[in-house]
């Protein structure tokens, strides 16, 4: 007992224990993976060359909805502690507070990245035999394919981190999920209502559009390049994390 001490590794282990011992964690993660695989397979079955989509973008059709699911995973991990009151026990054990935020971000982001990359690869490989014969067959070895599939994992991993950050910042599950859905799903539609040239110049920089750029094998003219897009989205996530960290340090629990 005398060797006990608080450490970053300990905080990570404690947060992993919290994460892995809730049923909601596995339900949310499972639903996210299922959305990617199921919607990818459906798109592969019904999609044809007329849509202008390639095999990879068809396989990744489920990522838009999966983003909401992994975002909820992140929100539950952070804001969920405020709604249950668990946060007081957490910050009594770790009074420095910030290590908890980093550990939650790492766990949500890492888990979402790993599971969603696998789901994307499964959707792609299992969808390939179902594709319309008019579409060009693509393999994992073709240029940009692995980048796009792992990029889907990276984007969804970052969305989970965004969920953690929003949850810590807003301290309310409902508010955080609504904000996340608004930013990822509703904002792009609203921007389309702007006058044409303005919409065209703003649209690529929206969080979901910038983050999705990494998922396309052949980037379209209207979007950022894959890596630039990912960098922009990472920037949004980092800024939100910073705001969450600031609030954690400055305000009472």
């Amino acid at each position, binding site marked *: 007992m005398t060797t006990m001490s608080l450490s970053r590794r300990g905080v990570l282990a404690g947060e992993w224990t919290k994460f892995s011992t809730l049923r909601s964690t596995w339900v949310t993660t499972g639903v996210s993976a299922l959305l990617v695989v199921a919607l990818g397979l459906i798109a592969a079955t019904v999609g044809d060359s007329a849509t202008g989509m390639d095999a990879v973008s068809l396989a990744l059709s489920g990522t838009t909805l999966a983003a909401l699911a992994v975002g909820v995973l992140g929100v539950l991990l952070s804001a969920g502690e405020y709604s249950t*009151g*668990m946060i007081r026990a957490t910050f009594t054990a770790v009074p420095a507070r910030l290590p908890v935020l980093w550990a939650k971000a790492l766990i949500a982001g890492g888990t979402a990245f790993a599971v969603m990359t696998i789901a994307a690869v499964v959707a792609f490989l299992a969808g390939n035999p179902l594709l319309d014969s008019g579409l060009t067959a693509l393999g994992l070895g073709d240029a940009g394919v692995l980048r796009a599939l792992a990029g889907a994992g990276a984007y969804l991993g970052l969305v989970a981190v965004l969920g953690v950050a929003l949850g810590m910042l807003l301290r309310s599950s409902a508010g955080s999920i609504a904000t996340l859905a608004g930013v990822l799903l509703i904002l792009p539609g609203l921007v389309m209502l702007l006058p044409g040239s303005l919409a065209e110049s703003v649209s690529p920089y929206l969080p979901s559009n910038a983050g999705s750029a990494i998922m396309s094998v052949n980037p379209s003219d209207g979007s950022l390049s894959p890596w630039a897009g990912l960098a922009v989205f990472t920037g949004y996530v980092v800024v939100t994390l910073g705001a969450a960290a600031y609030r954690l340090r400055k305000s009472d629990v």
Partner: protein
Amino acid sequence: MIQVKEVTKRYGDKTVVDQLTFTAHPGQVTGFLGPNGAGKSTTMRMIVGLDTPTTGEVLVNGRRYAEHAAPLQEIGVLLDAKGVHPGRSAANHLLAMARTHGIPKKRVDEVIELAGLTKVAGKRVGNFSLGMGQRLGIAAALLGDPGVVMLDEPVNGLDPEGVLWVRNLLARLAAEGRTVVLSSHLMSETSLIADHLVVIGRGKLLADTSVASLVAQAAGGGVKVGTPATTLLGVLLAGPDVTVTPAGPEELIVSGLDARQIGQIAADHGIPLFALTPQTVSLEEAFMDLTREAVEYTSSLELAR
């Protein structure tokens, strides 16, 4: 040891804790008393760094709480028995807290057994009764084998057996040389457990005293004397520090002399007495007297809303 030094906490223009100073010493149980809304919970949150004092300083074992290398080893707290994720089992809740400090699984099992939760340790906390939640909170407080144990309303929701268990546990922890603090709004319950009392109202210190001296203070209500010769006895008892007040046709209330002295004087002069009763005030009444102003203030505030 917990040292609260001239601590003030304001939320906006509302002062919840006002220039509060007290010390909880090792080896004794300190009862932290006050009416609801007196600032007890806020003070306890400031002790473990959840809230930051507006001014003043709180030290746990000589340092600010967050500066300790192993905070759970310094102080174990129960702040809110419901502050646990309802979907997690009791054992996993404790394990998650233990892992932050590298506390072994063996210790988790020990506190589960100590709290009498062995049978339900694998069940989700959402199904726990309030009493079981309190036991889990106490188990969590003891996880790091801390030198200071601080519990907010620990007997709330416990059955009589549980109350006795908490009482014995706290006495044992104090006997082991630990600092024990428990908050309550019930004087009678607290006086059974505590050695020392810190009473606050409206965030201000009202009393910082031992249970024994509060009892003595509460007993200072004079002696009721029943005699047919009230006038004669009144004259005989008169003195510089003595007050004699008629309380009825054959009754006097005498303060400044104890029952023994009054009885002796009466006997010396052959005056018959048929009542000689020290007027004690119950601890609960003493507490109510002490906090009356604070409570009234709170009530009128609520009415004004």
